[in-house]
């Protein structure tokens, strides 16, 4: 499984006086089993980019290959693509509509034309994956808490059995605990089901903690595409794009400026703690 984008351009309202270049010559490849974080400030083109990946919008120019097949080909099944590349939009709980949780999760597999048995099995599996047990099945999705609603909505996409799961700011509006719970669940999915994960996020702290690869977008272009450690070395350039590095990276740089021999490639609290303790013990010995 892989998704490959070649020179993808997308222009909003090309016929008007103000065409907007939402993605500008984007080329990249997404490999099986990766955990990718996509970052960029609002309007950087990341939402447009992810909608290309499951064919919700078509590039103005350029080509997208799914498993080597051009998705613009006439014989390419869009339905299959949408089931293989699951997209969870921002505030996904706003799309819940059925009378109970279970039926809502069934909506996706039902659209795939599966057997009754298969549909129910998938719904059960999906709800289990997001940590909701049977006691929730018959509840109305509208009466759940914010975090629970969001889980149901994510289960609705997981029930399609996607190979790639794209989440657009899955933690927006949740409190810190709710945020950690959702992200831990996503990390668990990545580890146990070998799904490819693409996480759109504004939080550099979260991104550093979970992702293996970071794609940074600015004004429709891919500016960086590397590991978090490598990308955060460019923290000054990130700032010019309205982004930043995690707070601990700044701490490391500040300590370095004060003459400490610290490795500045730290991106999480854990790493920073180790590095500072190492220095501390050296000094006190």
């Amino acid at each position: 499984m892989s998704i490959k984008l070649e020179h993808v351009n997308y222009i909003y309202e090309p016929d008007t006086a103000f065409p907007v270049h939402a993605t500008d010559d984007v080329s990249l490849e997404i490999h099986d089993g990766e955990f990718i974080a996509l970052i960029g400030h609002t309007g950087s083109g990341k939402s447009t980019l992810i909608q290309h990946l499951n064919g919700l919008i078509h590039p103005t120019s350029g080509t997208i290959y799914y498993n080597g097949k051009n998705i613009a080909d006439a014989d390419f099944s869009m339905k299959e693509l949408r089931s293989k590349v699951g997209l969870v939009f921002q505030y996904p709980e706003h799309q819940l509509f059925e009378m109970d949780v279970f039926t809502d999760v069934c909506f996706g597999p039902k659209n795939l034309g599966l057997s009754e048995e298969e549909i129910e099995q998938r719904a059960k599996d999906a709800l289990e994956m997001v940590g909701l047990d049977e006691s929730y099945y018959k509840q109305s999705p509208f009466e759940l808490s914010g975090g629970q609603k969001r889980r149901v909505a994510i289960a609705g996409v997981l029930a399609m059995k996607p190979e790639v799961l794209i989440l657009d700011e899955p933690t927006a509006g949740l409190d810190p605990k709710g945020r950690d719970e959702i992200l831990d669940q996503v990390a668990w999915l990545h580890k146990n089901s070998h799904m490819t994960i693409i996480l759109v996020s504004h939080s550099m702290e979260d991104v550093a903690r979970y992702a293996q690869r970071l794609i940074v977008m600015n004004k429709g272009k891919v500016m960086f595409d590397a590991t978090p450690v490598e990308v955060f070395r460019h923290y000054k350039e990130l700032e010019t794009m309205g982004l930043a590095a995690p707070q601990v990276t700044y701490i490391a740089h500040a300590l370095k400026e004060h003459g400490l021999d610290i490795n500045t490639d730290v991106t999480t609290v854990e790493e920073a703690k180790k590095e500072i303790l190492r220095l501390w013990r050296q000094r006190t010995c």
Partner: protein
Amino acid sequence: MNLIKIAKLIFEYAKYGEDGSVVGTSRAIDNVSIDIEKGSFVAVLGHNGSGKSTLAKHLNAILLPTEGTVWIGEDDTKNPDALWDIRQRAGMVFQNPDNQIIANVVEEDVAFGPENIGVPTRDIWRRVDESLKAVGMTAFRKKSPNKLSGGQKQRVAIAGVMAMKPDCIILDEPTAMLDPHGREDVIRTVHELNKQENITVVLITHYMEEVIDADRIIVMDEGKVVMDGTPKEIFSKVDQLKKYRLDVPQVTELAYELKKEGVPLEDGILTIEELVDALCQ
């Protein structure tokens, strides 16, 4: 001098069964007493469902106490004759920027409040000018709110409250739906209003980075006030905060972890400078 006085506040709402009958009550606020000083910047923290939003709605008489009393200045919020006076003095900004802008043009939205309280036309214009300037949105006054970013919309909402010449602004999770840029913008604006116009601010949030500059932090859990102090005092209790489903800024967490390992650091470090200075001594 206290601007807001909350005494033994209890708020309960009815729970309904499947057939629509009342099956019991749920206590959202449980015996809360708080005094808020004029001109102060108070942050109220708590996870979703801790009662912090319910508390905020009492300060503007949108909700009335089941038991206990809330005073804004001299006025008891339960006094119906004082209702408009209270709402003018304690302005409120809500979470969703789209759902609180009423007019189709920025300046007309800012005028909405003053129009409602019967301010003469000429004064409305002056107030709109001043309020837009105070939040830095003058350049956008003729624009449609739909063309603004989330952070800009929230600043328009704040200007709308400022135009009523309030003593106090209550912001109910104003940044929950914004990106980091918009969040910074809104928080900076609120701090400026607090310092320059001496407006009392009550900021309700669950983003810890937003509260480190507050004068006072109140932490709520299950409808009760569980912590109350300066940022330094609150953030020195990392374990306790985590118990209440809250977070601390990375620098505070790092300092706390280092201290546990024996590095001699003081409690409640809030900024990078503090930590670096302490480590490089």
